[in-house]
């Protein structure tokens, strides 16, 4: 189990990666840590909700097709409690209609799998920048 992120004073931007595929988990963790972010992992929807509520990540990178509740249901539950929590849907469901569907469901951004590593980093970096601006105010 990942350790709770030190979000408060340290200012480390923490990303929760919710994905049932361990290869995807490892890839995201490796790339984001290398970019300087803290990474939390959840292997299904329920776990993602649980981690979000208990460890308050800075943002969530959410897969959709997961056992139990899927990523969209998890997002709905998290947004109900934490409406400002940035959630990026990262899904292999990558038809045009899927993107609309995810945004309509409340996603802050959508990342189609497979993705270029730079895209993943820039999406997270942008949210981190937004966060910094907000904190600065």
């Amino acid at each position, binding site marked *: 189990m990942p350790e709770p992120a030190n979000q408060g004073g340290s200012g480390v931007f923490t990303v929760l990666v919710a994905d049932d595929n361990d*290869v995807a988990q490892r*890839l995201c963790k490796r790339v984001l840590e290398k970019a300087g972010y803290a990474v939390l992992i959840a*292997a299904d929807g329920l776990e993602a909700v649980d981690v979000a509520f208990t460890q308050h990540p800075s943002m969530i990178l959410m897969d959709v097709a997961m*056992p139990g509740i899927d990523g969209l249901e998890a997002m709905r539950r998290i947004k109900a409690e934490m409406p400002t929590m940035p959630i990026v849907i990262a899904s*292999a469901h990558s038809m045009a209609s899927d993107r609309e569907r995810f945004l309509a469901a409340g996603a802050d951004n959508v990342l*189609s*799998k497979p993705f270029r*590593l730079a895209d993943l980093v820039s999406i997270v970096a942008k949210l981190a920048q937004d966060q910094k601006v907000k904190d600065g105010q």
Partner: protein
Amino acid sequence: MPGARPRTAPKPSWTLGLVRRLTPLAAVAAVFAIQAAAGAGPVLVFPLYLTVILLTALQLSRMESLATAVLSAIAILIPSLVGGGQPGDMAPGLLLAVVLMVSAVAITEVVRQVRETEAEARRKADDVVASEERMRSMLEAAMVGLALADADGRWTEVNDRLGMILGRSRDELMQLSLTDVTAEGDRSVLDGALALLRSGDIVRWEAELNQLRGDGTRVPVAIAIGTAAGHVSGGPLLLVQETDISARKRLDGMRDCLVSLRHVIVSGYAWEQAVPQLLGSLCAYLDWDVAQFWAADTERKALHVRHYWHREAAGYEAFRDQSRAKTIAMGVGLLGRVWQSGVVASLEDLSAANDYERADVAQAAGLKAVAVFPLVEGGVVVGVIELLGSHVRGVLDDEVTMLSTAGVEIGQFIRRSDVAQALRRSEADHRAIFERSPIGIVRISSDGELVEANPALLSMLEHDFETMRQNAWPDLLRAYDQAASRQRFAPLLAGITAGHSVQVRAATGGGKWLWLQLTATSIPDSSGRPEHLLVMVEDVTTVRETSDQLAEALESQRDANANLEKLDRTKTEFLSIVSHEFRTALTGIQGFSELIRDGGLEPDEVRAYGGYIFNDADRINRLIGDMLDLDRMESGRMSMRSGDVDINEVLSEAMARAGTASTVEFKSDFDPRLPIVVGDRDRLIQVVSNLVNNAIKYSPDGGTVTLSTRAEGGYALISVTDTGLGIPADEIGHVFERFRRVRSGAAQSIPGTGLGLTIVKQIVEMHGGKIWVESAVGHGSAFHFTVPLAAEDATPLQRRHA
């Protein structure tokens, strides 16, 4: 006595009469003077006196003759009286005087006789002349034609009237005989009569003949011929009496014509048959030669010739043909005017006509006069009849009246015939429908008795009429009423008016069951009460069966459509799932290969990432292989290499492949007497391997996997049972569907393409077997499948799962 009768001779003047009367006195005085002078004796002068007396008697009257005789007697006596006075001398004189007197008396008597005879003869002759004159004036004054003819019929005397009747002058007639002026057709009759009259066998003959007028026309006459008193050479004199009966004949003709027309009309002929007779009667009785019926076509406002009739003579064809080719508009020409006005019209002489278009061709056919009368029904002119005659003739008022009457009667007849014909046609139609309809038709009385059944019904129900009437029909009637009451219709005999249809079951004579549709219609009598009923009987067995089949087919079509829709959805879903699977696998491949490419990694990192990349690539490869397999199987393009397969050996092989590295314990429970099956050994190994691998995968904590075989009902029954995670109840129905992987709970991280069980099911079914699963979460799963045994006595396996 003399002078009593008037003399026919002219009276002489009184002077001349006096002279004549005094002449005998003078003659007597002269003789007396001679007697006295010569003193001749009485005997001598006696002849002289006698001569005077004779002459006087011849010339003068009897009184004068007697007076002369007395004077002569006195004169002969005078000498005797004067001369002697002797009685003896007086005797001869006296005697002579007496003789003289007697002679005078005798002579005058003879003369008187002669004269009387002569007067009588003269009187008789006068009578004859007077009689002749009376007779002649009578002849001339007579209204009848009178004539005398000799025994051969040659005229000897004719009156003017006869000349008028025959249209010839008296002189002309005198050149001809009775036979000459008689129409050819009547001559033989006449000649026969003349022969009888000549022979004296009959004295009087009467007849009606046609005679020929001077202008060649005929005149009908009543003739009476009697033998008259007196003979001429060769036979008796004939008194001929003739009356012109043309007026009477014309009236008779018109009367007879109407009678004849009515006879035809009431004889019950159809119009088509009656028309020639009507036209013929008009010609025959009214003395026309051609008759044509023109029908009025009110829609097209035109008259057309429908029927044509002419006397037996040639030369009318051109006229007929032109008439037939002609269309006459209302109000145009003679016929058009009659059609429009409804009034009889005629043209006395076609050569003077200017509104008769066919005048030329009519005249060429020898037709000279025309009369047209309308056929009227209910105030409407339904046609006209055109009559044409071969001589110039007018149409008199009474004939106009007669034709008008005939027109109304014929018009009504046309209407009646039309109606009757329509009725007959309708009757014939109905009869044909009844006899030849493929639908069964029965006519039943108002009390339900079968009156008539058509051939179609009898053959449909395979009954003869009697059976039909006595048995089958009452059954049908009951069945109708039952069906009707179910559908809330009135029973058959309760005043059906419109056709209600009911369907009933009925058995044929041959024992076949049919569905019959009965449709009843009541036929009312004139008072509106149902007089009888018609029931249409249709065999709807096929329709019923077909409609059942159709409903079934529709149902299955609906299912098929639903399946198609589902298939379409499934296909889209499948594509979505497949792309998702690929992209998931590619995420790792792409991401880690990008990391390696960018460099800066530790060697063991590179090794680990290469391992991830290899695994995902392999997964994609398997996915593609499974999908192609499945596609080939589902499209029937998968070829099976069939051969004898020992199932027990297949299971052993699969068990061996699953391997040694497994964390589970294998058990086997093979039926050693299991017969050989026919199938594709490699595929069957694929099935068992898949099931065994699944059993291992879903037994993450180890456990036992049991493989068993058994022969059951002609099938080899193979079971792979594990003690693993089990399948949740809501997923167990879907495990054989594509990309359905049990991923709940502990099973979520178990890898797989999601196509394995779908492929397994396909292979089993391709072998003619079935596959099913029993499972309980936490207790494990048991997959069973069957493969038919090679033995011929194989019977279907009873499915045994719940």
